[in-house]
């Protein structure tokens, strides 16, 4: 079959005629150190040419516009421009320092450049772009009037040439790939600007007004005052470092990212700054004396702006940060990095910026901790800092920044609610920034975190009769940020506030106003509580709110409840005897618990699917073969080898023959082979032994011998290669000492994979994955791209239950305390899972009894306590926990229906 593909004409040649390759040629510029004005001027000219082309309205022209904008964006950046010059200039000469023309004498050009970057970074002309542009203008000292004038000027420049721009753009399928996507959104800028400016100066004014007004309740930084505050805050955080900073040399300056690009959170600038710092630290002749202040600026920009970045951008930045951490550690300068990284964790998060920085620092540290080769001292400092902050204390090593950020949201809400800044709307705005960036469109997760924060705010302090209530504004903000999707949690929380006389009326009134504003069905403007409302009015309103929130939450009909109860009875009657069957049954019980939660929340379809799923056991993979510990054999070929004496050829031939025959070594021969591979002499013998151990890489005796003898094998890059082959993972050379530790760890993991795997591992992994999914289902979540362990899943579920639900005393403080004490003595992931689950069961019990007081919850919990104590292993304890959770809900249904289900 031929793989010939039809020839696709080059769009640039088609639209602009024959054009040499490279960004300079594409823009019609000489490959020299062109100025910013030249770049933007050429861009305009080229766009005019495209618009004037007969192909102006074709996809090819669109591609060319994309390419032009991408090229202009590259050349706008001095650092990238210098790199490109090295590639495209005839003599490969980079411009000398001092020749640069980045002073940006023309402010309008600078603003235009910021506009390009802001729109490109923000995925189009949206709230985030406005926010970025406002930040950039503020940093340049550009006022809104001047911005409006510049935008008007920009528009008029282009309207003279834009006949084709008014044509309807061809719809294009979404492209994958960062550069193309970024270029595509940049290409929309002039079109939209033209439309705006083409409509006259009035529209330009609207743009400016939009800049201030159009950002939503969670993105309100576009006002000049807030912009100034943000920037001032950024400078303030860097001040102590700047004071210590030595004056930069001209060479240093060349590597420093443009300050304004950092101020607006340009992901590429931040990433490049990390890379440049890593490079500078890696060059022994360069001391990089200002590394700390530069890192402070770059990380400060990231911490400030991460919520505006795309996930691929945060991933790239964190990757560069990891490299920087290793580069710093190799120069024993990691402490400078650590100080900056942990600063937001150890200072008070009292405003929007510092709350975002806290989340960024916690998530970055969690990502760094994932690096197993991190120097121990650095790891210890980072772990200590992470644990020192209540919002991040639950974080552990994670593979992705975004995953850590997700995990921070809920604890952050609880931490803020219990902090001295619980009533600070600015701090809560920061929380909402973090929430929206981390959880995206996951409404249930966002609501749960927001509700947790609101719970804390509603019950903090107390308002005096005379002073205005301190928490009303925060309550209003958080209530306004809820989706008000009805759920049992939401209903219980709101009614709980009405029931609790300690909750100030002003805060309840704020919540009611938010409900009215959110158009919650059954709630209208007559239901807003007056500040002077008495207890009677409060109870009256409670009944109305209860009815309004009951609407959907009452969801399941009698038939659905009966189906659920029948399924529960059926599963509760089953028993299990092996670890895998216990966890399988626990997973199915957990599915029914999740189904009941879904019913109570009005998610009937999901509940039905879970009930159906729970009826089917997991197909269990076969057990693996039991392994034996390699031992020394009395007839070991190692003796035969020793008897060969010093003959080089005989010894080399021995290993060649062993490899050819596929000889399975006993422990003594394996050790002999490892010793010869590591230290054998001469090289012919050593190489032959290495070939043999490489060929036997999965052999238990070889792996065990390699682990046990790793401390006697000389550290060398050559030895590292065959050790990597045995460990089945690349062991990087990190200098003497550190390399051996890395090899030890890699070989231990390989050996644990062989010897520390249970015979029932395949089945146990399968059922534990199902259990994790079941617990996530109770949260209304799915695994997505990031698989979670059952322990992580139940940790998330319990954390949410503890944060969102409240017992009669307002908090589950006893349950929390018990949990912490139990976790302190838990050994390993399984026991930790038992205790997280136990806390969840306790909360479910108290909630069931609160919702339906007739529920015989105490009897169920007592039975569970006895079962848990009598259990022979942790698997049985987990099964007992799931039984108890389901029994509680089943008993509640009986209590509510009088046994009718």
């Amino acid at each position: 079959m031929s793989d010939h593909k039809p020839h696709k004409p080059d769009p640039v040649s088609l639209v602009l005629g024959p054009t040499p390759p490279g960004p300079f040629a594409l823009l019609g510029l000489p490959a020299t150190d062109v100025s910013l004005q030249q770049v933007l001027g050429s861009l305009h000219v080229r766009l005019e040419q495209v618009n004037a082309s007969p192909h102006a309205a074709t996809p090819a022209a669109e591609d060319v516009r994309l390419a032009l904008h991408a090229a202009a964006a590259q050349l706008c950046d001095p650092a990238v421009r210098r790199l490109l010059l090295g590639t495209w200039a005839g003599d490969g000469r980079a411009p000398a320092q001092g020749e640069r023309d980045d002073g940006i004498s023309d402010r309008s050009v600078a603003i235009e450049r910021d506009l390009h970057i802001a729109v490109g970074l923000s995925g189009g002309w949206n709230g985030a772009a406005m926010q970025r542009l406002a930040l950039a203008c503020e940093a340049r000292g550009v006022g809104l009037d001047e911005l409006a004038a510049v935008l008007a000027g920009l528009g008029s420049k282009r309207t003279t040439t834009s006949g084709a721009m008014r044509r309807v753009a061809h719809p294009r399928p979404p492209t994958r790939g960062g550069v193309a996507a970024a270029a595509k959104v940049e290409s929309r800028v002039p079109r939209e600007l033209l439309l705006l400016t083409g409509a006259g100066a009035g529209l330009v004014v609207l743009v400016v007004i939009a800049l201030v007004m159009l950002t939503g309740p969670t993105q309100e930084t576009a006002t000049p005052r807030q912009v100034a505050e943000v920037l001032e805050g950024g400078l303030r955080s860097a001040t102590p470092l700047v004071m210590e900073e030595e004056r930069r040399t001209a060479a240093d300056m060349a590597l420093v990212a443009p300050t304004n690009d950092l101020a607006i959170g340009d992901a590429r600038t931040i990433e490049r700054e990390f890379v440049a710092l890593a490079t500078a630290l890696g060059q022994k002749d360069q001391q990089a004396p200002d590394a700390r202040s530069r890192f402070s600026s770059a990380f400060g920009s990231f911490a400030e702006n991460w919520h505006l970045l795309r996930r691929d951008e945060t991933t790239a930045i964190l990757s560069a940060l990891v490299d920087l951490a290793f580069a710093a550690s190799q120069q024993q300068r990691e402490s400078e990095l650590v100080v900056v990284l942990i600063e937001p964790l150890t200072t008070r998060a009292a405003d929007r910026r510092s709350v975002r920085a806290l989340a960024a620092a916690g998530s970055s540290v969690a990502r760094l901790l994932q690096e197993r080769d991190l120097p121990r001292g650095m790891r210890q400092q980072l772990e200590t800092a992470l644990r020192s902050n209540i919002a991040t204390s639950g974080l552990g090593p994670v593979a992705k920044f975004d995953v850590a950020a997700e995990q921070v949201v809920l604890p952050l809400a609880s931490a803020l609610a219990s902090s001295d800044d619980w009533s600070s709307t600015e701090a809560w705005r920061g929380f909402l920034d973090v929430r929206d960036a981390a959880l995206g469109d996951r409404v249930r997760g966002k609501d749960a975190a927001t509700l947790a924060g609101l719970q804390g705010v509603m019950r903090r302090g107390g308002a005096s009769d005379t002073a205005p209530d301190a928490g009303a504004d925060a309550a209003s903000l958080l209530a306004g940020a809820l989706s008000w999707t009805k759920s049992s949690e939401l209903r219980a929380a709101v009614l709980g506030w009405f029931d609790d006389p300690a909750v100030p009326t002003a805060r309840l009134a704020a919540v009611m106003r938010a409900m009215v504003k959110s158009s919650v069905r059954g709630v209208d403007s007559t239901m807003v509580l007056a500040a002077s409302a008495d207890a009677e009015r409060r109870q009256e309103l409670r009944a109305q709110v209860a009815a309004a929130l009951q609407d959907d939450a009452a969801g399941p009909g009698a038939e659905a409840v009966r189906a659920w109860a029948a399924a529960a009875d059926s599963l509760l009657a089953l028993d299990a005897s092996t670890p895998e069957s216990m966890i399988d049954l626990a997973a199915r019980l957990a599915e029914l618990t999740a189904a009941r939660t879904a019913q109570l929340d009005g998610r009937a379809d999901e509940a039905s699917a879970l009930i159906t799923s729970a009826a089917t056991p997991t197909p269990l993979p076969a057990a693996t073969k039991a392994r034996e510990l390699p031992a020394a054999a009395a007839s070991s070929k190692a003796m035969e080898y020793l008897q060969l004496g010093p003959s080089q050829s005989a010894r080399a031939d021995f290993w060649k023959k062993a490899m050819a025959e596929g000889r399975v070594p006993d422990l003594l021969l394996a050790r002999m082979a490892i010793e010869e591979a590591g230290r054998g002499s001469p090289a012919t013998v050593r190489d032959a032994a290495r070939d043999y151990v490489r060929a036997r890489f999965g052999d238990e005796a070889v792996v065990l011998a390699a682990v046990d003898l790793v401390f006697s094998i000389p550290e060398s890059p050559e030895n590292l290669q065959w050790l990597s082959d045995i460990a089945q993972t690349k062991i990087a050379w990190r200098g003497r000492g550190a390399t051996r530790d890395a090899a030890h760890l890699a070989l231990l993991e390989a050996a644990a994979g062989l010897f520390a795997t249970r015979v029932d591992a395949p089945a146990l992994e399968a059922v534990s994955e199902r259990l994790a999914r079941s617990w996530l289902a109770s949260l209304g979540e799915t695994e997505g791209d990031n698989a979670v362990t059952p322990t992580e899943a139940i940790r998330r579920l319990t954390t949410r239950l503890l944060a969102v639900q409240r017992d009669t005393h307002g908090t589950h403080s006893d349950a929390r305390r018990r949990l912490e004490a139990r976790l302190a003595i838990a050994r390993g992931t399984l026991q930790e899972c038992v205790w997280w689950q136990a806390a969840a069961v306790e909360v479910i019990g108290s909630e069931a009894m609160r919702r339906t007081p007739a529920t015989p919850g105490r009897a169920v919990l007592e039975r569970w306590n006895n079962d848990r104590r009598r259990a022979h292993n942790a698997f049985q304890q987990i099964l007992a926990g799931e039984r108890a959770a389901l029994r509680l809900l089943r008993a509640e249904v009986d209590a509510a229906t009088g046994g009718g289900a």
Partner: protein
Amino acid sequence: MKASHWMSLIAACALAMASQVQPGPDAGVFSREDIEGLHALAPEQPERYLELGEEILDRPDSPLRVEMARNLFVRAVEYGRLQPGGERVAASAALALASMSPRAAERRWLRAVAATLHPDYAAPAGSERPDPAAGARAAELITRLRAGEGIRPREILGDAKVRGELVRGEAALSADGTIGLTDLDAAAKKQPCPTCSGRGIAVQQGPKSAALCPACKGRTALNASIDDVASQLRLQLALLGERQDQWGKVTESEAAPARDPDASEVAVVFGIDTKLSVWRDGQWATPQRPGQGEQTPTVVPAP
């Protein structure tokens, strides 16, 4: 069961028997104030048990005094937890017991008990975090012992921080708890095998005579089974800071039932009959009930 564990068992029995010895008032161990304090004890006042225990422990110049203090702390936990408002006393007593315990696992458990009794006694986060550097050396030690080395392991075992890490992970040194820190000490002393220098092959009369070592037979002094080795490997990874979350790899000891830090189990664990709550005639007795004299048991429980 290994020899060292028989020795541990015998030692424990001897200690238990010794603890049956009654610390009588004329033993010269307790002062007049101590005796008066003992006679004044009543379970409705758990704080008195705690205070007297602390006073007696102020002069720990006799094993009997130490044992009596421990006894009093256990009773303070038990009576305190049952007394309304006595949780703080019970928690303090649990912490006092923890400070006396030579075993890390027991200390952790008692501190957890204290935390469940009263919120003020919750340990600050990370208060007993592992030492990564010592953990790495502990992991190296186990590898070297498995390799048959002795000299370097003895050096490493001389480091108190390493020993602390090993005590913390002691339960994972074997699959069934039969290998302890003392076994590591013993193995390090025995190794390397004097006959084969730890290689497992004896070459007493030149290479041509190479044969399996008649002394060690190619085995290390730890004599670990495959389950023990599996447990050790996971412990080593944990000592190196690697979390192991896959359930398919948990060892039997990791799958053991999770033990609740339950204050009601303190007296059971320490083997003290708390029904005998008052001190009369040099021994613990049941308190007097209306119309009854105080009852003394025929066997005096451990002080």
